């Protein structure tokens, strides 16, 4: 067994940390877009909007039924060969697009379950006062569904953060890509990859603390 090169590891930290903002930015943009798309798809499915409902089902089935890596390759390497206007797409954009569509498919099902989980009396009360379906969704049903879905959605965000590491296969130098480059130069693979693992781990742990705060806030209306 050879000893760890601790000096190298410490020196690597500031180098890798420079890439954290890109990783978080990709993950955050993908999360926000996925959340919006997933909410729309969930509503379409709950309300059984004709046509869109079937389309959504196929979309969800495809993006849950195929590996994320395959989807990313399809977007970045495949689609530009069919649609020439996509040749200009860069790795970061392709990765964010792929993460968005992939996780939107999963999140749509969680949000749909959460919407269905809101008590029927809430729908009836909203309708009885004369709200439109859109008002009912926005003001009464979705806020309550958010509380039910929050833990699951934060888990998906954690998953998205970790999955941004796949962007490195599209030639993006993000956190994982940077670690790979450093390791290839120094041949100290263990040091480089354990450092990058620790950085992901710390990010996710910090996020878990935020999650607890969020759940307290969303649970405010339900405290006795």
């Amino acid at each position, binding site marked *: 067994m050879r000893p760890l090169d601790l000096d190298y590891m410490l020196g690597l930290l500031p180098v890798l940390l420079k890439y954290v903002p890109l990783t978080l930015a990709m993950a955050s943009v993908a999360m926000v877009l996925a959340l919006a798309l997933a909410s729309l798809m969930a509503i379409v499915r709950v309300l059984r909007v004709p046509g869109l409902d079937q389309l959504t089902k196929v979309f969800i089935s495809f993006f849950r039924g195929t590996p994320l890596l395959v989807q990313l390759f399809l977007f970045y390497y495949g689609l530009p060969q069919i649609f020439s206007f996509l040749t200009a797409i860069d790795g970061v954009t392709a990765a964010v697009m792929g993460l968005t569509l992939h996780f939107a498919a999963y999140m749509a099902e969680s949000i749909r379950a959460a919407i269905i989980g809101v008590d029927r*009396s809430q729908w009836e*009360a909203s309708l*009885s*006062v004369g*709200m*439109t*379906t859109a008002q009912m969704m926005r003001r009464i049903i979705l806020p309550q569904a958010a509380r039910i879905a929050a833990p699951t959605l934060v888990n998906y965000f954690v998953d998205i953060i970790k999955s941004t590491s796949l962007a490195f296969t599209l030639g993006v130098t993000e956190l994982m890509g940077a670690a790979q480059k450093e390791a290839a130069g120094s041949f100290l693979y263990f040091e480089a990859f354990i450092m990058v693992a620790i950085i992901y781990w710390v990010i996710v742990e910090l996020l878990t603390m935020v999650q607890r705060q969020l759940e307290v806030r969303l649970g*405010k*209306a339900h405290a*006795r």
Partner: protein
Amino acid sequence: MISVKGLTKRFGENTVLDGIDLDIATGERVAVIGPSGTGKSTLLRSLNFLEKPDAGIITVGDVTVDASTASASEQRAVRRRTSFVFQNYALFANKTARDNIAEGLITVRGWSRAQAQARAEEILATIGLAEKAESYPAALSGGQQQRVGIGRAMAADAEIMLIDEPTSALDPEWVDEVLQLLKRVADARQTMLIVTHEMQFARDIADRVLFMDGGRIVEQGAPEVIFTEPKDPRTRAFLRKVL
């Protein structure tokens, strides 16, 4: 005023409302009594389009709709004119007591938030819950929740208040405070159609009592007539059981 002609509702093979005709004058307080499963709640729910009737014409104030073909906006027009008090309160779980009352004023009637909240505070004071303005439903007792439910219906300033077994889900200790509030609402000559199992209450507040059985109005009249000398044998049998 409210007018219902030939209101019919079926659940599969089962005809729950069998061509109901009913007129209610402004300021009139009508109580509906009868055995369970005879369509009392369905009548109220149909007037608010919580159930979609299979046939019938509904007039509420200045709006007349064919109940079986009413569009979404026609249904909303009827709902705006008919407020509903639910058996299980059905308060918005994500809104405070104040916002439960203000919500419809903001979303449906387009009031400003400040205006709606001020009105909600007035109503909370009227129903004796001013100090609970910031409380969420989960932190209120059953009786308090139902009082907020009634407050929400009061805020709607509707042509008619539809009240569906308002005390059936309550622990006995909360029944009285809810009945007392409803009595005050009735005394203010709010037009109302109330389904209730509280016979004494029906007798106290109603101008007219309807006895329903098998999806039809079997007998109706002033409470002193219905409760003391009912004509139909089904009314007599029912009252013998419950009084």
